């Protein structure tokens, strides 16, 4: 027994020594290790809908236009474009010097093939097809001129054409691999080449040395790192250990407390990035009692200290939300300001609505029925924590809250269809305020507040079909005011993505959409 003890301990010591002594090979300076979070189901940007796939693929594809830091449209694969006065015809004049990464030329025919593929029902596009709106047909005028015909004016079209979901893929590669397999062999015109994707494990990109047609938003002509390997870190608890051990050089969506602690260590930088679109928010169901009463909904808004919730959950990293859109979005207005917080006013409104506090305290009731609310929260975006914060705040004004956490987007949709909730959390990022139409118009699939308001419908439809930017802004101001007046939503915080890098990574910047890094400029 003694001898075996000695042997066992010696082996243990030697093994530990061996592992820690093997540090001789220097880390590759030309490989960047990027940490992603959720694994997308389908990484073909014309098919899949997740933002995660865009993080690597934004740099594999170019788009017809790009948006600069101020939201202005700048030339991309199209060197200029013309829009007809009635908004029904878009003509793009394409660059003539662009080649796909497989050597085939980029031209108007490629644009037609790509857009028709997106609209083909066979590929079941989850996002790109809807971004094209009422697109009717694509016409090739000459080898480098392509015309898009719309059934009706659609203001978000240029914004859609600036996103990775409508990036231009090589027709030769599309034909060679077929719809289901193409996602593993993607070919674009961008500064990085797609090397391989092992589902759930890693995705590898390699520098495209022939790249010479980047937009003005790219500071460099070609990529600064040779190779980027993306790995997935689904569990938030695993993200900081990966940064600390050097397994990842860049990490997205670092939990706020971990980010605050790690950013104090030398060699680690925090890059908070605002994401335009909808904030973390709770929709109020206008068809389910007691939230079917406008006074009750207004009272709930006034009873909520949103600043306190944003601060306690996110430290100082996220501003509290003040409207149905993040204030960093073009067309967003603070129609639900923090100054609405007014506990006394809230109590008054509830009394007026008939929900009174019994003499000894406790729950408010009306004709013997207690004031109870049901909140449905999905697991992402800190929704459950925010729901619990609302529960705590509203309890102090005599409202009982029951929080149901659903496990996935399928369950969230099921809960939505069932309609038995007073509040439900969901949000979507987007650079165009037309996202509001998908959530607040009467017939929309995601009409979570179940509102049926003709005035709101009209404003949102008009804003989608008006091409003048200033006219659109005015319409959105009115629409957002209407949403606030009807008290359809309680916005909590504007989305800020906490990215962290470790030295020697430099010059990591994100594009206008917020989620997607400009990988051509990153160096290590």
């Amino acid at each position, binding site marked *: *027994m*003694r001898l*075996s*003890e000695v042997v066992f301990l010696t082996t243990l010591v030697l093994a530990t020594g061996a*592992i*820690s002594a*093997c*540090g*001789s*090979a*220097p*880390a590759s300076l030309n490989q960047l290790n990027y940490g992603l979070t959720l*694994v997308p*189901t*389908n990484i073909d940007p014309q098919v899949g*809908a*997740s933002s995660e796939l865009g993080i690597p693929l934004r740099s594999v594809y170019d788009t017809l236009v790009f948006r600069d830091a101020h939201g202005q449209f700048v030339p991309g694969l199209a060197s200029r474009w013309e829009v007809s006065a009635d908004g029904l015809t878009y003509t793009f004049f394409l660059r003539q010097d662009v080649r796909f990464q497989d050597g085939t030329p980029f031209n108007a025919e490629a644009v037609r093939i790509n857009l028709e593929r997106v609209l083909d*029902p066979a590929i*079941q*596009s*989850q*996002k790109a*097809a*809807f971004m094209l709106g009422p697109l009717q047909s694509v016409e090739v005028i000459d080898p480098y001129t392509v015309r898009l015909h719309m059934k009706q004016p659609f203001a978000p079209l240029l914004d859609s054409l600036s996103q990775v979901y409508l990036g231009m893929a090589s027709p030769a590669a599309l034909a060679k691999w077929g*719809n*289901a*397999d193409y*996602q593993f062999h993607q070919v674009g015109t961008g500064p990085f080449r797609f090397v391989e994707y*092992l*589902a*759930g*494990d890693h995705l590898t990109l390699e520098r495209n040395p022939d790249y010479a047609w980047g937009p003005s938003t790219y500071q460099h002509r070609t990529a600064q790192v040779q190779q980027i390997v993306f*790995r*997935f*870190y*689904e*569990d938030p*608890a*695993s993200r900081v*250990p990966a940064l*600390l*051990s*050097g*397994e990842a050089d860049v990490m997205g969506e670092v939990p706020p407390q971990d980010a605050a602690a790690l950013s104090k260590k030398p060699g680690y930088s925090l890059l908070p990035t605002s994401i335009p679109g909808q904030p973390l928010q709770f929709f109020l169901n206008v068809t389910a009692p007691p939230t079917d009463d406008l006074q009750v909904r207004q009272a709930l808004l006034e009873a909520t200290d949103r600043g306190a919730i944003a601060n306690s959950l996110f430290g100082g990293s996220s501003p509290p939300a003040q409207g149905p859109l993040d204030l960093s979005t073009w067309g967003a207005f603070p129609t639900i300001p923090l100054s609405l917080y007014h506990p006394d006013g809230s109590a008054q409104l509830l009394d007026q609505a008939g929900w009174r506090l019994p003499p000894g305290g406790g729950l408010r009731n009306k004709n013997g029925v207690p004031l109870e609310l049901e909140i449905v929260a999905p697991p992402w975006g800190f929704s459950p924590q925010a729901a619990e914060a609302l529960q705590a705040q509203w309890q102090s004004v005599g409202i009982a809250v029951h929080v149901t956490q659903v*496990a*996935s*987007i*399928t*369950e*969230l*949709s*099921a809960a939505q*269809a*069932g309609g038995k909730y007073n509040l439900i959390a969901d949000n*979507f990022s987007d650079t165009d305020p037309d996202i509001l139409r*998908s959530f607040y118009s009467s*017939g*929309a*699939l*995601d009409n979570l507040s179940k509102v049926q308001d003709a005035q709101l419908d009209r404003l949102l439809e008009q804003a989608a079909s008006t091409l003048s930017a200033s006219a659109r802004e005015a319409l959105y101001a009115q629409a957002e005011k209407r949403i606030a007046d009807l008290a359809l939503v309680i916005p909590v915080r504007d989305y800020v993505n906490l990215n962290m890098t470790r030295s020697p990574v430099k010059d990591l910047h994100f594009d206008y959409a917020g989620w997607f890094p400009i990988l051509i400029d990153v160096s290590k």
Partner: protein
Amino acid sequence: MTIARVLRRLGGSLVTIWLVTSLVFFALRLSHLDPVAALLSQGLATPAQASALRASLHLDRPLLQQYSDFLIGILHGDMGRSLFSGQPVVPIILSGLQFTAPLAATAWVLAILLGLILGSLASRARASEVSSLMRLTARVLNALLALGTATPVTWSGLLILWAAVPVLANATSGLERDVLGLMLPALTLAIASGSSLGRVTQAGLLAARIEPFHLAARARGLPSGWRLEWQALRTTLAPVISLSGVEAAFLLGGTMVTETLFSRPGLGRMLVEAILRGDYPLVQAIVALAAAGYALFNLLADLIAAWLDPRLREETQ
């Protein structure tokens, strides 16, 4: 075990696999998980597009017809395509299996080794022929084994992840990272499963050491040491290995947690994601594979146990 018995076991396993898969088939479709809603929820589609998609996925057909289509498909070797990625299900599963199989196998072997070694050491708490240091170690191990059985894998996994940070920081070659990527989650699972096996070993050894055959061996002059220990251990080996077959269910479930925590691809993580998205064909195929794997693990464990302990072999008169 005779060939006939093995064949009967295999036949029983097939029935189990069929029953489990059918149960999951109906449970998925009768639940409120709607893959069409998930497919379209981020695409902001119209209700008309939702019905068109449902029809194209055959989800609007009567339940029994879907079931018969499914069974016919299996007889032709077609387990369907993932509703989300469009890939045929079998290659997806094989790609996940290449990561989960080594993890489960390593965890299983480590669990048995840990269980036998630690259980055997822990059983020496009151032995008179060992040093007091060993007796103290044995008492500590006894407590640790109890703790190991009770600790949730999510928590112990997180501790191991953090403890491994300096080791990972020093591992710069691809091979080292691959080895660590396998060993860390395997160790997490092995500690939890091995603790149960260790307690069974400990109890078995304590019983074996007072058996007449063991006392006789000592009286014959067999020196204290591994040889004597091995003699006592042989009686406990069979139940421990049989138990490890049952523990296989824990290992299969544990891969879900460890694969997510240690960012390792595999069937466990794939199954969780497929369930959350309502990807019916993928869920059915992984569950069928899990049932088959469990049946196989158990059969293997029982075969090894019978080989080790003749008392467990079926006698044919």
